[in-house]
């Protein structure tokens, strides 16, 4: 009887503790961080970017689909039908899965042809899907490879496009943190401004 009473008492303490902590950790804490986040509303809202005319065209952190020769292309995406931000995720295909081998081979051949480079020059990030399916970046190598195609499709000077790629390339923080990358949405946005 004493044991049962003790257990019931501990359960009752548990209920009250959980309620108190839900108020502190489940409401007050996230709301307080939300309030602090208002110092940098753009960032805490999702780093949305707009055209020069002010139209919001997406988030700098969330990749989006670009088809057509006049755009820089992002990586293959396994999120829904491609860059579906409501179903993030990777393919989860194994390194020895025949489906993945075939997909990589096909992408490699298609990109080599479209960008006019040798198949061996196509970088790994161009032919593999990211973990999130929303990777906003591509490698600087892959961006440079697309310059000639984009310039010719737009009928503009490749040097101009190449300059935009250089501007859009982010190096490693302090020279060693993270990897060099090119944000595809920002790069394509900058293309719009030069025509």
């Amino acid at each position, binding site marked *: 009887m004493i044991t049962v009473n*003790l257990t019931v008492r*501990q359960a009752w*303490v548990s*209920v*009250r*503790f*959980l309620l108190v902590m*839900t108020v502190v*950790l*489940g409401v007050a*804490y996230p709301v307080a*961080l*939300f309030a602090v*986040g208002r110092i*940098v509303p753009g*960032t*805490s809202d*999702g780093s*949305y970017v707009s055209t020069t005319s002010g139209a919001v*065209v*997406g988030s700098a*952190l*969330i*990749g*989006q*689909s670009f088809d057509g020769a006049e755009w820089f292309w992002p*990586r293959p995406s396994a*999120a829904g039908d491609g860059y*579906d931000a409501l*179903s*993030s*995720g*990777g*393919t*989860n295909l*194994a390194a*020895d899965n025949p489906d*993945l081998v075939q997909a*990589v081979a096909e992408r*490699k051949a298609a990109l080599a042809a479209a960008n006019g480079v040798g198949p*061996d020059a196509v*970088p790994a*990030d161009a*032919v*593999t899907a*990211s*973990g*999130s399916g*929303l*990777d906003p*970046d*591509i*490698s600087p190598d892959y961006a440079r490879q697309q310059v000639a195609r984009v310039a010719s499709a737009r009928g503009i000077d490749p040097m101009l496009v190449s300059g935009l790629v250089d501007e859009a390339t982010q190096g*490693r923080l302090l*020279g*060693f*943190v*993270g*990897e060099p990358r090119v944000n595809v*949405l920002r790069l394509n946005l900058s293309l719009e401004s030069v025509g």
Partner: protein
Amino acid sequence: MNATFGAVLQVLVLVLALGLVYRPFGDYMARSLESPRHTRVERGIYRIIGVDSSADQRWSVYLRSVLAFSVVSVLALYALLRLQAYLPYSLGREGMPSLQSLNTAVSFVTNTNWQSYSGEAALGYTAQMAGLAVQNFLSAAVGIAVAVALIRGLARTHTDRLGNFWVDLTRITIRILLPVAVVFGIVLILNGVVQNFAGDTTITTLTGGTQTIPGGPVASQEVIKELGTNGGGFYNANSSHPFENPNGLTNLIEIFLILVIPFSLTRTFGRIVGDLRQGYAILAVMASIWATVTGLLIWVELNHAGPALQLAGGAMEGKEVRFGVPMSAVFASATTSTSTGAVNSMHDSFTAYGGGLALFNMTLGEVTPGGTGSGLYGMLVAAIVAVFIAGLMVGRTPEYLGKKIGAREMKLVALYILTTPTLLLLGLGAAMATETGRAAILNPGPHGLSEVFYGFASASNNNGSAFAGLGANTDFYNIALAVAMFLGRLLPICFVLALAGSLAQQGKAPASAGTLPTYRPQFVLLTVGVILIVAGLTFVPALALGPLAEGLS
């Protein structure tokens, strides 16, 4: 600078940062736990919950508090998930199905954070914030509390009292977890992790298509997800999602947060038992295995073996450009050597040996450095096995920190060590023997076995990461993995607290010429050996059929 050299520098910075905070943070945790004074906030909490903060508990009462709190938490979280449609900020998401709710509730209460749902599709903000994130704090605090009870068992003499669970839980939450979470939550927000209540925003893309982008109170959950070695992502893609982990710096910070409490607790241990060298020895065991596996994981991923990755020219499948291959490997090692289970890249698409090393990390029992608290108590159990074996060799009754390791203690230790392998291998066997178990496998060949092996290793060790190709949202897996998580968490806690009670009652035997010094390199080596041999004997057959078979073919 190439990627490998950059990664080496990042790992050095990580180790340096962990080293810098080790002493002050470890000592701070010890002071927080052992201080006789209560703050005003804490006294207020004790009044509300009706607890006498000066009443120390016997091990059986401490255990009863842990069990009662765990069961109440599972029931409350289950109800919250089932009823989320009626809560504010539900974003129109339906209540979660029954078995999936059970699986998720057990998962978050046991510090596992296995997820058979997709966050952005299945959950509203209240369920995430007031349900899952609260358990991210509290389940981590429970782990630390149990570890502290075991430390007190070793430190105290001639007593049956191990401290008060409610006082420990409150202090760990209020003094340790919450302040660190606030500071680093702000750092994450400044770097682009979102923190809003905006719901889903639909925009017209640059090419004229539409894209719906989710929002959410992500930063507040992200930081405790890593700090509490929980691992449950706000979004399906977890820490590979740019809103959870936007750049190389946040990636490094998140890895730091995963490792900081498990490593620093060894200082807390040394401080409370009154011999810092004992804590350094335990740290050396943890760090040597962690560093070795991390180095190997970077190396095999950079080698990108496997036909698809060879053809692609790099192991970038399932990895993000901003992190690159080496820092994805470091994250994978950190998350599986602790009981975190957050991922910044998809382990299912790693090389055979890379995924195998992540799996190997979990089969060591999550002690290198392991989860918040659970890593330390698991490691102390391994240390007791080491002194027992050493005692057998020289024919003396083994002692650890002056406490005799007798028949009762060794029985409890043996039960502890047998629990997770039993759950893992029974679950794996049951899944492979049934049609419904095998139907969930995505990839063909040995890798398919690895997916199921990984799932049960993750659940029974309370890790929570996955070879996510496994379609685990079925009745079979929701139930089987919930059982593995529940027993894999609470049975070891029962044995640890019983052990703590039994140690606390003893006096302290003075060290003699025959006592094995448990702070010397020979003891560190012996304990490393014990961990590798116990895991090796248990899991080599299964590892050979999965990742090794894939890697060698």
